[in-house]
């Protein structure tokens, strides 16, 4: 399988070749991938150094001249460190851009808390009109980036190392029905799909897959509901999309289990898979949470 981050870099390089209005701004991180692009397009590939506030503002300043910026570093510095630059540089100035964060919640597990950003999507979600891409496969990374750069408006693309075996089409505001059942509905976001499918083996549930979570496919969720039990499995802060599920089902009595990265700091290093397990996001942890939730429903 292709590496998602390398796929991002290669696709960005292709887009720089294809479209003169595209620019890439980065802050040292991932510079090892951008050598060719920088040589071919020295005016449109900009390394700002270790200056993440400036990173976002330079992207927005480029957009003010009519260019389409791709702005990239680790999500922890892209979104969490520089949040006001996103809020004011892009949203308040009312210009478009494509932010691409890597690292996500657990990629840099051995780096500790400083390099982990489970809160990125929740932070972006405080702003209106951002399209949030959570690709679960390298091919989806390429497709999300292409659509985001070709489109208008503001996009956040969350590129992480973990990926599913199968790639799905990228369709803003539309989820995929991966499995039909008559019971609960499980929404798997991005790289959570494979562990979710393992976890619900033998359970009579529907599985939806989302590689874009904003806008959220409320219609698609309502269309497949069996029992009014929903399990949300997100690879970032647990509960990030609870509010949109609540909105989608506001006229229906329902129960929601929202799984994701917990708020408590682990203060552990080790491997990504160990962090996922610690947050209950491996197949065994997911199965335990989901069966407990469904058993409670049956008992009620």
């Amino acid at each position, binding site marked *: 399988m292709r590496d998602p981050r390398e796929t991002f870099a290669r696709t960005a390089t292709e887009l720089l070749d294809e479209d*003169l*209005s595209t*620019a890439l*701004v980065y802050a040292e991180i991932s510079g090892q991938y951008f050598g060719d692009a920088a040589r071919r397009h020295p*005016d*449109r590939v*900009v390394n*700002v*150094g270790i*200056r993440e*506030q*400036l990173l976002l*503002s*330079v*992207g*927005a*300043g*480029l*957009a*003010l*001249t*009519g*260019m*389409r*910026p791709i702005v990239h570093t680790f999500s922890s510095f892209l979104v969490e460190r520089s949040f*006001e*630059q996103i809020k*004011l*540089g892009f949203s*308040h*100035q*009312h*210009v*478009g851009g494509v932010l691409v964060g890597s690292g996500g919640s657990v990629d840099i597990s051995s780096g500790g808390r400083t390099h982990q950003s489970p809160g990125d999507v929740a932070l972006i979600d405080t702003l209106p009109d951002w399209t949030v891409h959570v690709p679960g496969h390298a091919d989806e990374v390429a497709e999300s980036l292409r659509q985001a750069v070709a489109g*208008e408006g503001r996009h956040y693309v969350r590129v992480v190392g973990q990926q599913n075996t199968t790639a799905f089409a990228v369709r803003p505001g539309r989820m995929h029905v991966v499995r039909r059942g008559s019971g609960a509905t499980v929404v798997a976001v991005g790289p959570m799909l494979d562990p979710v499918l393992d976890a619900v083996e033998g359970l009579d549930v529907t599985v939806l897959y989302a590689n874009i979570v904003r806008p959220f496919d409320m219609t698609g969720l309502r269309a497949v509901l069996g029992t009014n039990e929903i399990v949300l499995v997100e690879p970032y802060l647990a509960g990030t999309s609870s509010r949109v599920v609540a909105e989608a089902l506001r006229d229906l009595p329902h129960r929601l289990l929202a799984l994701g990265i917990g708020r408590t700091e682990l203060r552990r290093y080790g491997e990504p898979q160990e962090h996922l397990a610690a947050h209950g996001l491996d197949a065994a942890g997911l199965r335990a949470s989901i069966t407990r939730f469904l058993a409670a429903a049956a008992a009620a």
Partner: protein
Amino acid sequence: MTTGTIGADTFDARRGSARTRRGSTRTRRGSAGGGYEDLGRLMSLMSGDEKHGPAATSTLDVLWVLYDRVLDVSPQNMTEPDRDRFYLSKGHGPMAYYAVLAAKGFFPESWLTDWASFDSPLGHHPDRVLVPGVEISSGSLGHGLPLAVGTAIGLRAQGLHARVVVLVGDAELDEGSNAEAIQLAGALGLDRLTVVVVDNASTSYHRPGVIAPRFEHEGWDALVVDGRDHEALEWSLSRRTPGRPNVVVAEVESK
């Protein structure tokens, strides 16, 4: 109020401007509106204070000289890709800015009277979506100069020779984001970028004479001028320094 349309046009024009690169006729300045002597009256429409003269506002002379004598921007070319840009980074106290824009015909003088009311497009911090001629929305300090660095890179990448002039206050330079911007602009030799620091010695930890050297250390061309002297302002702000960004420290009375 028709301001929503203005904002939408600004946004929709975004992609087109990079791709079409229309050759514009560089009309130098708008002929509409009043002169410098009219600014006091325009500001009094906002302040309600008949005695509120131009000297009471630290930025007024710099703003006037930029729009009257230096920048190639007017209501006629304000959406052209190759117009000069002015970024008011220090969004605080924008009365002088609004007075100059009204005097130059960017929006009607009648907008000034109910400024900062719920229905007015003119707030205590300017919003580019609401006000014709306003290039950035500002208010939170330390954003305008970093945005201008991006804009200068964008102008260069598109082969446009327009410039971006950004006004910051001396106390605004407290914000660390400016340090990032000053360093990178010097390193990249962004000669489409000019900073004008209106220095009224308002920073809490003021040390005389440190602003210009700070920029010079990062490779900028720097001048210090009297911020009330229109001839000195015109000369220094019109100056371009090939291969380097430049800063003009405009000294005015201490706050």
